[in-house]
């Protein structure tokens, strides 16, 4: 656990460099800076001009800069040598996408420095941002393709590897159709790579099996936005945090998941007119400790809790009836459903005390402005989309959207995840268009110059990740191309995933920068470039687009994913309807320019952006077009949403069953720009604790690690900060099992077992928590470490996002 940050009330002056002092003095218009004495180390680390402006491992969120309105600049930097040059980029290790410059010397990355002018971070960086780059130079980097021969992975040339893939693709397509080929990509690619992959999959190979690991983190966010507002697209802006009167965070441990944004929240909380903070989390996290009200519902009870809050808001008359009449449909059903959830019933089902619920509802009902954030505690839980939509409803019943300080953030886990959604490399159609809208499909077919029937003909979305793996399990998918992700550690029920990946009749390609647990099971491994080794753009959770320029060459024969896709398309000789090459671009900028034309007039309008524009300034939000040449701060300012039948992204779903609403039914009651208020009642989770497995297990993130630690596990400072898995258990349960802190326990579910040391405290009785990052590439292949050995293969009916956050479990002392 990180040392708790100490704050000193007196202003202190430690030994700062003149540059730091100068920076400090330019921020006086807004702040009194409070600097922990022991933590500011500005002395050079050695004689090479190395700099570390702060120790982000010990002090995750840095010194406080209290504010209201404009957030101050603070340039965070960590370099191990003085760079020769700085290259413009942004971080990819959480969905903030903090702007930074990469320091380069002698062809190597020597560090990073935040960019002060940027709207997202104002120069700040978190521990992963400051340290993560070190993984680029790990000796473990894949430098050469590998092909499985005689049972082992052997080095091969690019030609050999690509020829084999092409041969396999052609063989399967001809004998069994392209429906035997599936792609499982990553949230870590750039926009240009997603766009190339989308056309490669849709119009080149023409397979419906395309999804990314964004299914595991972001699918519910997208679906919730679509269900309520008609299309994807987070309506708010990070600047809303700077002026809001209240913040509501549900299932979102922001102190761990987006440290720089949390710094922004803390700076508001220490400033004048601080916002009230309500946090919903079954664990007493650092985020929960900061809250004015911490609601800790039983795992699986988000929907009753939210219905309870909405019920109180309605009963108390705190809803904006006139605004709702003009801008929404569906309130009556919400009133009927939420009415069933009195504070007493909420307490009985969720464990949240009725008076706490009342206090929270009073804030939500009376605050002048409100920012809500939602993340995996909702998205990976039972009834994910239904619950996420209720958070939208809190804003819709009060009319708190589209104005400064009022926004709902359906958050992402990665900054690049937003781009899979916009480019159609996951379950969404490109530019938030609609699979069931013929005009939209025609527009794409025309832009790509392909025949309409080359494009997937059916009016259903592409196959989602867990279904792709199910098809592989049953043998109807026979080739799986896995790009930049590690399903052997990050998917649920890992024993099953390993079985599937090892099937004789499944040809597995793994494209990655390191040999992961998944790569070890592959038939072909392609060495890929990392961030910093390729140019491209990506978009964060408040629609801010950044460009990341190539700073160094990838090691050995590693290539960017972009180049690998272009190579494959060339070898497959994909053509358009005029028999010209399908891919019309040869570099990332060409892909960007081609993509942005499709976004013209869509919510995610990139048409006003260019590489030049992104390179000269810093982050710019979409929509960026003629009307908004510098990007638009907020969506839905006029209360008109994207729900018109000809514009919307889907026609919506039954939140409980997942059944799709038909186009006919939707058009018969076209809301024509009104938002949907969609109600949902409680459905208890299917795997409840019983005598055999009496506890509830949940999983989640640690601040120092990203996904399965492929990169962060190879960064010494990050690895040292969180080297090992643990099981978090309550004092009550520890006492019952006669457990002391640090003693080894075995946690078992119906799927598997994990052995780990116990960490006692800060969690409700009856619950367990295990961080999901710890695979087995670095512990001699011992599987009893990965949290997903224990999780179940079950997912949300609408978003298809897996239920990582609950499983019935038992614990025994080892």
């Amino acid at each position, binding site marked *: 656990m990180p040392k708790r940050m100490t704050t000193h009330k007196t202003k202190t002056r430690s030994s700062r460099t003149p540059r730091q002092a100068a920076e400090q003095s330019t921020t006086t218009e807004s702040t009194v800076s409070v600097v922990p004495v022991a933590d500011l180390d500005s002395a050079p680390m050695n004689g090479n001009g190395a700099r570390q402006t702060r120790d982000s491992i010990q002090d995750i969120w840095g010194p406080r800069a209290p504010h209201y309105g404009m957030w101050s600049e603070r340039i965070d930097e960590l370099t191990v040598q003085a760079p020769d040059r700085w290259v413009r980029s942004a971080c990819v290790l959480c969905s903030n996408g903090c702007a930074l410059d990469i320091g380069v010397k002698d062809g190597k990355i020597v560090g990073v420095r935040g960019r002060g002018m940027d709207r997202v971070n104002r120069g700040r960086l978190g521990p992963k941002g400051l340290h993560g780059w070190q993984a680029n130079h790990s000796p473990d980097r894949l430098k050469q393709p590998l092909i499985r021969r005689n049972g082992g992975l052997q080095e091969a040339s690019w030609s050999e590897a690509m020829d084999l893939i092409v041969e396999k693709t052609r063989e399967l397509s001809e004998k069994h159709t392209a*429906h035997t080929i599936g792609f499982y990509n990553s949230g870590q690619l750039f926009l240009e790579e997603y766009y190339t992959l989308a056309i490669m999959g849709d119009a080149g190979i023409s397979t419906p099996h395309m999804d990314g690991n964004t299914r595991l983190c972001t699918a519910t966010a997208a679906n919730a936005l679509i269900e309520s507002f008609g299309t994807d697209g987070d309506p708010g802006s990070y600047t809303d945090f700077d002026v809001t009167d209240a913040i509501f965070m549900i299932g979102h441990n922001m102190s761990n998941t987006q440290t720089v944004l949390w710094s922004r929240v803390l700076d508001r909380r220490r400033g004048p007119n601080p916002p009230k903070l309500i946090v919903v989390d079954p664990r007493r996290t650092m985020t929960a400790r900061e809250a004015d009200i911490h609601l800790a519902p039983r795992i699986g009870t988000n929907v009753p809790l939210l219905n309870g809050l909405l019920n109180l808001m309605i009963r108390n008359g705190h809803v904006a009836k006139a605004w709702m009449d003009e801008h929404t449909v569906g309130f009556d059903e919400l009133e009927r459903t939420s009415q069933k959830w009195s504070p007493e019933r909420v307490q009985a089902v969720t464990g949240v005390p009725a008076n706490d619920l009342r206090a929270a509802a009073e804030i939500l009902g009376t605050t002048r402005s409100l920012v809500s954030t939602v993340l995996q505690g909702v998205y990976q839980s039972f009834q994910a989309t239904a619950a996420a939509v209720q958070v939208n409803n809190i804003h819709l019943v009060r009319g708190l959207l589209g104005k400064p300080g009022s926004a709902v953030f359906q958050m992402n886990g990665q900054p690049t995840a937003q781009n899979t959604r916009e480019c159609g490399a996951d379950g969404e159609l490109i530019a938030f268009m609609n699979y069931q809208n013929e005009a939209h499909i025609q527009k794409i077919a025309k832009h790509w110059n392909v025949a309409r029937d080359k494009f997937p003909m*059916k009016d259903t979305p592409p196959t989602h990740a867990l*279904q792709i793996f199910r098809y592989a*399990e*049953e043998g109807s998918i026979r080739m799986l191309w896995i790009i930049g992700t590690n399903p052997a550690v990050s998917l649920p029920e890992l024993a099953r995933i390993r079985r599937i990946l090892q099937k004789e009749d499944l040809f597995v390609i793994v494209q990655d920068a390191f040999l992961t647990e998944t790569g070890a099971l592959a038939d072909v491994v392609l060495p890929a470039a990392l961030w910093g080794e390729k140019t491209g753009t990506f978009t964060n959770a408040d629609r801010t687009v950044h460009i990341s320029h190539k700073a160094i060459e990838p090691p050995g024969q590693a290539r960017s994913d972009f180049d690998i896709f272009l190579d494959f398309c060339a070898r497959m000789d994909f053509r358009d309807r005029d028999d010209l090459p399908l891919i019309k671009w040869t570099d990332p900028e060409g892909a960007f320019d081609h993509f942005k034309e499709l976004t013209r007039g869509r919510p995610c309008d990139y048409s006003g952006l260019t590489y030049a524009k992104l390179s000269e300034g810093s982050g710019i939000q979409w929509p960026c077009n003629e009307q908004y040449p510098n990007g638009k701060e907020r969506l839905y300012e006029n209360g008109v949403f994207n729900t018109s039948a000809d514009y919307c992204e889907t026609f919506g779903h*039954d939140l*409980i069953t997942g*059944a799709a609403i038909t186009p006919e039914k939707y058009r018969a009651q076209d809301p024509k720009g009104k938002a949907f208020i969609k109600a949902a009642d409680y459905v208890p989770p*299917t795997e409840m604790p019983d005598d055999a497995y009496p506890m509830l297990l949940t999983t989640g993130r640690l601040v120092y690690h990203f996904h399965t630690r492929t990169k962060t596990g190879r960064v010494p400072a990050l690895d040292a900060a969180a080297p090992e898995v643990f099981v978090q258990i309550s004092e009550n349960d520890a006492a019952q099992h006669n457990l002391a802190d640090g003693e080894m326990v075995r946690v078992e579910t119906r799927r598997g077992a994990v052995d780990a040391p116990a960490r006692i405290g800060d969690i409700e009785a009856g619950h367990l928590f295990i961080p999901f990052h710890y695979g087995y590439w670095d512990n001699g292949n011992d599987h009893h470490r990965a949290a997903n050995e224990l999780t179940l293969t079950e997912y949300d009916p609408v978003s298809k996002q897996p239920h990582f956050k609950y499983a019935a479990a038992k614990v025994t002392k080892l």
Partner: protein
Amino acid sequence: MHISTYLGRLKSAETQLAEAFTVVATRHMNESEIRERCKMFAEWSSRHVKELEPFINRYGDEPTRVGEALRGILFSGTRSGGLGKLYDLQDLGTMTNAVRTHYTILAEGAAAARDAELKELCERLGQETNRQTDWLCTQIKTAAGQALVVEADKAS
């Protein structure tokens, strides 16, 4: 008065539907969504039977095997792989449609008999049956392409 006839037919049809959903859930344990949703729908149909009980007490019912007969005609033949999954979903759809028609008929009869309570029940349960059918349609559309163009080597 043939209200009791239709109450009897509905009881039979919903009971058989609940069992059919349960069997399909068990047959497709590795299809997470089918397993979970069919289990849930089995509970819905069982609950429907309970909700009909007060009206069966009021009007009586005429026990009938119409549900068994329909189920017996459906769900036959070997059911493996993607095609087997489609057949199961399609046959469930035939049964949910039959149940829905029963509710429509009974609702009309209740209105004619001036039984507002029974009419309201039929409308509400009929809507839930629609939701079962809607889900089956969505699943069928999603699964059909793959099932028809690719041969899975074996059912697993």
